[in-house]
């Protein structure tokens, strides 16, 4: 990677997150009226940080990410909120500006590499075309860079001439990562980057991503439904339910002290590797029909601790007071020297949690 410049860390201004998403709303235009798939979702990603977005399929996690790059196709529209990248207003960008912005600043790693790669173009062509598009290089130089990128993810350069179907699943995913790194972007969106792979390959790929992150210093928006991966990988985690964020907290804090009944339910539905054996319980019921979501808190029909107010009022995301946290998890609170831009504290959108934990409004 000698020929690539370091990530745009130099442009960093203190106190400013790399990506800031505020109150983002996405709706689908349907014949029976608009369906809101993402409802006032906010999060920030600091430099070098990994922010995890978790939730069941259909919860809007991929939709939110794609909306932040303006990549959603019809009938989607963004109906509110702000997306700022290094202070640049992504929602105000025009078509040309967006084409220049994409991949250079934010690159994507798709869930299924098989579907993300064009079956009729060689691997080399698919890496080189994005380099040629964004940088003023000859095609020979672009191919040379493509070979370097393949080497970076541990694939020999002879594979440049291979077509996607000639590679194994793990190799394809590495190729997708190599394409994502082609312009050395400061931020990567990873949408379930390993779900389509078997467990051993999954581990290898994740380790590789971690190493590359260490080396190149990019930030990650990590989207998954797998909470155990989150703990391993993320600094901060946001839990989405039916298009709304219901809990945001530093990963360790969230796992030690989940506040939202949905988060707790999610945790219980995974076997714990360490610690006492617990019964695995799913969450009763199924995610709501987004065409007519429940009133108030969208989780209340499935919630075992719901109180009368839950179906009346939509709970706001509030920051739990430090004492409550201290009480709950002992010494492990926010460290004061946490990197700039990282979500501080523990926020939850739940009437019950707000009552019991004691809180201060944001």
């Amino acid at each position, binding site marked *: 990677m000698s020929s690539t410049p370091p990530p745009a860390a130099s442009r960093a201004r203190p106190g400013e997150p790399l990506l800031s998403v505020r109150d983002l709303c996405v709706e689908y235009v349907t014949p*029976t*009226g608009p*369906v809101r798939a993402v409802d006032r979702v906010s999060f920030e990603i600091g430099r070098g940080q990994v922010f995890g977005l978790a939730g069941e399929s259909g919860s809007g996690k991929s939709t939110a990410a794609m909306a932040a790059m303006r*990549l959603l*196709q*019809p009938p989607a*529209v*963004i109906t509110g909120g702000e997306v700022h990248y290094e202070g640049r207003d992504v929602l105000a960008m025009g078509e040309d500006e967006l084409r220049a912005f994409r991949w250079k600043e934010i690159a994507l790693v798709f869930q299924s590499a098989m579907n993300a790669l064009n079956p009729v173009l060689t691997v080399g062509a698919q890496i080189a075309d994005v380099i040629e598009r964004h940088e003023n290089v000859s095609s020979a130089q672009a191919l040379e860079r493509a070979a370097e990128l393949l080497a970076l993810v541990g694939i020999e350069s002879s594979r440049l001439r291979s077509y996607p179907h000639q590679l194994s699943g793990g190799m394809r995913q590495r190729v997708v990562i190599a394409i994502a790194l082609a312009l050395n972007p400061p931020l990567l969106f990873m949408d379930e980057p390993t779900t389509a792979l078997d467990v051993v390959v999954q581990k290898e790929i994740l380790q590789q991503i971690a190493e590359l992150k260490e080396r190149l210093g990019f930030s990650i928006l990590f989207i998954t439904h797998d909470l155990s991966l989150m703990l391993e990988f993320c600094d901060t985690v946001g839990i989405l339910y039916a298009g709304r964020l219901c809990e945001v907290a530093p990963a360790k804090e969230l796992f030690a002290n989940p506040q939202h009944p949905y988060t707790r339910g999610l945790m219980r539905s995974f076997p714990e590797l360490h610690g006492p054996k617990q019964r695995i319980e799913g969450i009763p019921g199924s995610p709501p029909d987004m065409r007519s979501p429940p009133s108030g808190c969208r989780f209340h029909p499935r919630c075992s601790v719901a109180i009368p107010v839950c179906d009346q009022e939509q709970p706001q995301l509030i920051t739990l007071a430090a004492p409550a946290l201290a009480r709950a998890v002992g010494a492990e609170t926010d460290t004061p020297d946490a990197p700039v831009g990282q979500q501080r504290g523990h926020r939850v959108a739940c009437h019950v949690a707000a009552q019991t934990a004691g809180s201060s409004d944001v």
Partner: protein
Amino acid sequence: MSFFRQLLSNRKANIGLTLLGVFVLIATIGPYLVRDASEFLTTPLSPPDSEFWLGSTSQGQDVFAQTIVGARTSLLIGFLVGIVVVAIGATVGIAAGFFGGWVDDVLSLLTNVFLIIPGLPLAVVLAAYLEAGPVSIAFVLILTGWAWNARVIRAQTLSLRRKDFVAAAIVAGESRLRIMFFEILPNMTSLIVSGFIGATVYAIGAQVGLEFLALGDVSKVTWGTNLYWAANNQALLTESWWTIVPTGVCVALVGFALVMINFAIDEITNPRLRSEGGWKAVVRAAGVTPGFSTPVLRRGSLADSNALADSSAPALSKEAS
């Protein structure tokens, strides 16, 4: 919403069904309302006038009457062939897809061979050896037209066979015939309808072609024989365009109506093909030009837009506090 209800609420389907309905009506009662189509009635090759709306042929027959009367045989054979072709296609396709193994190998091979053999020359050879007339034509069209439906229905059967309800029926010990025709067939309504329409379009077109080649009964009045006589009597040299245009336009209108219905069926079964008109209207109403990137419409604009005035979804109205 059931398939047929969806079809009735589709604009393209409505255009097609209306147009088709008009022609079916013409074919049914029209012949009773016009002059005798075979009689010598007026000066040969007289251009359209107030008495003979579409002029006369070189035999002094009424072109208007011929066009109306011709609709009957042409449509009747078209629909009949369509029905038989779909029945054969469904039987062969479902059998091949359901039984698999050597049955599938043999039936698929046969299907693919008939699909690739050019239809018209085979039809000509067959028709030439048979007694000229509508029955022979229908037989020839069925023989040359069944394969496409068999292929499409086999593919659909293969995918339905993997579905739970078919597996359940097999485990429950239902007879094979029952599973094929009472479990699988009803789940292919749209495919059967579009197959029928496609076969009818083919049958009408090919029938006109064969009759144009004098392989029909040239003494009967059909759309194909109308064109045969027009060409045979040098309609172009005599510049009597009215002897060819009306019949051709009718054939095309019927074909267009049928294809529009199939177009609508495609849209119903493949949601991706549905028009993005609603989305576009909403985006434009907000003063944004639709492009490739997700448009940004500021808060409230969606609910205000007229395009979705009947919006019942609570998304914006209630909760965007």
